[in-house]
């Protein structure tokens, strides 16, 4: 009951704030739309509800090069829509030419991600976004400085007012708006979605790839077990695994977050949606194409003490799939059905300065 009163009181205060003369703005709730099969375990926060105006501002900020100290790069530089918001490089390049430590991640279906970065160290998109913005070798600019630069642009105060109820430009609001935009980057219109909606029939090779990927119990088809980690309609379970890239991992991965030896070389499993667009692959971009990725799981998984239990047998030996050439081609055919061409051409996700919709 006490909790109810507090909530009610805060709501009332917020409503009053909106009524203060000169500060009067009403933003419109943004309705997220996604298929029921994606489930509702979404990662949103009560203190940053999505609004139409907030998403629009976030989109503009996402493509705003003045958020970098050199005024040359934006979030969109390394997260390019045409590549499912990646950049085709092993390591992205910051404003000063320094390569990043890990491969730029896709921004596909972040609404459901609960722990961001390859090592899962950020619990929200708000917490994540400030890192590349302020990292001295990425965009290299403190948020306070970004706020000052945006204030000098006549257009921004009005956009902040529309999004947040007052024209104050702060680092916190910059990050919140970008997070709002990123939550709208939902990919759910791939051929695989049409398959799930029973509007598309797989070709023979796609069907064989699908069966291998997920396994087909009772049909005497062997399973490559991909779906154990890349499972469900979003083609991901958010877990951390050491997938046997190295005997001695050069990057300690999740261990650097938890301090636990058993997390050495573990990285977050990523969605395979739009995977054909996001080469190169792995946290360090070591594999140039999907063929190399399948070769890894097929023939090259290496033992280390933290190798995922799903990739080793009971005697701790790596399980090598020894896929045939045809099986690899089938898997790639299935992976290609995860490419969502409307996601990468949706004008709502594009640079608003180029595409005004």
């Amino acid at each position, binding site marked *: 009951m006490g909790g109810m009163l507090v909530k009610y009181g805060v709501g009332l205060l917020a409503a009053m704030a909106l009524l203060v003369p000169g500060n009067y703005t009403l933003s419109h709730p943004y309705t997220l739309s996604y298929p029921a099969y994606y489930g509702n375990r979404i990662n949103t926060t009560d203190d940053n509800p999505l609004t139409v105006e907030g998403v629009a501002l976030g989109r503009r900020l996402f493509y705003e090069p003045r958020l970098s100290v050199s005024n040359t790069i934006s979030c969109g530089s390394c997260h390019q829509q045409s590549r499912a918001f990646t950049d085709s490089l092993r390591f992205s390049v910051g404003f000063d030419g320094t390569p990043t430590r890990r491969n730029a991640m896709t921004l596909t279906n972040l609404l459901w991600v609960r*722990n961001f970065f390859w090592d*899962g160290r950020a619990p929200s998109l708000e917490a994540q976004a400030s890192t590349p913005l302020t990292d001295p070798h990425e965009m290299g600019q403190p948020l306070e400085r970004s706020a000052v630069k945006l204030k000098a642009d006549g257009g921004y105060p009005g956009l902040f007012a529309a999004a947040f109820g007052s024209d104050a430009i702060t680092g916190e609001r910059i990050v919140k708006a970008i997070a709002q935009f990123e939550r709208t980057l939902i990919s759910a219109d791939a051929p695989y979605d049409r398959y799930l909606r029973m509007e598309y029939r797989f070709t023979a090779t796609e069907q064989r790839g699908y069966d291998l990927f997920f396994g087909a119990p009772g049909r005497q088809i062997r399973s490559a077990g991909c779906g154990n980690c890349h499972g469900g309609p979003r083609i991901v*379970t*958010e*877990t*951390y*695994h050491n997938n046997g890239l190295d005997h001695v991992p050069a990057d300690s991965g999740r261990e650097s977050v*938890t301090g*636990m*030896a*058993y*997390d050495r070389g*573990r990285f*977050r499993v990523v969605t395979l949606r739009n995977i054909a667009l996001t080469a190169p692959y792995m946290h360090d971009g070591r594999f140039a194409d999907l063929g190399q990725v399948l070769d890894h799981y097929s023939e090259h998984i290496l033992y280390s*003490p*933290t*190798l*995922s*239990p799903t990739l*080793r*047998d*009971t005697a*701790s030996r790596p399980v090598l799939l020894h896929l045939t050439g045809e099986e690899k081609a089938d898997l790639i055919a299935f992976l290609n059905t995860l490419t969502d061409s409307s996601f990468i051409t949706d004008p709502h996700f594009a640079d608003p300065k180029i595409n005004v919709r």
Partner: protein
Amino acid sequence: MKLIVFVFSFCLLAQAASSQQIKVTGEVTKPLTLSAADLAAMPRSTAIAKDKQGVAHTFSGVALADIFAQAGVTTGRQLRGENLAKYVLITCADNYQIVFSLAELDSSFTDRVVILADQMEGKPLPQGVGPFRIVVPGEKKPARNCFQVTSIAIKFAKE
């Protein structure tokens, strides 16, 4: 020299294992942080489960019910009314999560004893699985026999 290195790394691993702890939080009267030594000192239970190859193994550890007794969870005669809307969320190091309803783990509802195991056939759990795992005896699918448990949270379904 090799032996020295081996012994040294074994000591390091042993030390790491002993530093790993499990948090018991949520709807408890006494939140716990349990170490391997704490679990060793608690009432011990066993459970049998099959591995990937279908071979049965005997695990030993502490019944979740006994951990709940120590943490002050509503069990037994208290497990009625709204307390039946409580569930147990188990989280593992790899972020894998599973749930039980509280009633599934209570001796007044079932004879099945689910344990937090720290030993298999009298030895510490194998690499990648330990130091602590869940063993649900008799479950047809092994998906809740999860590895490297880091947290046990008792929660209320609030909807």
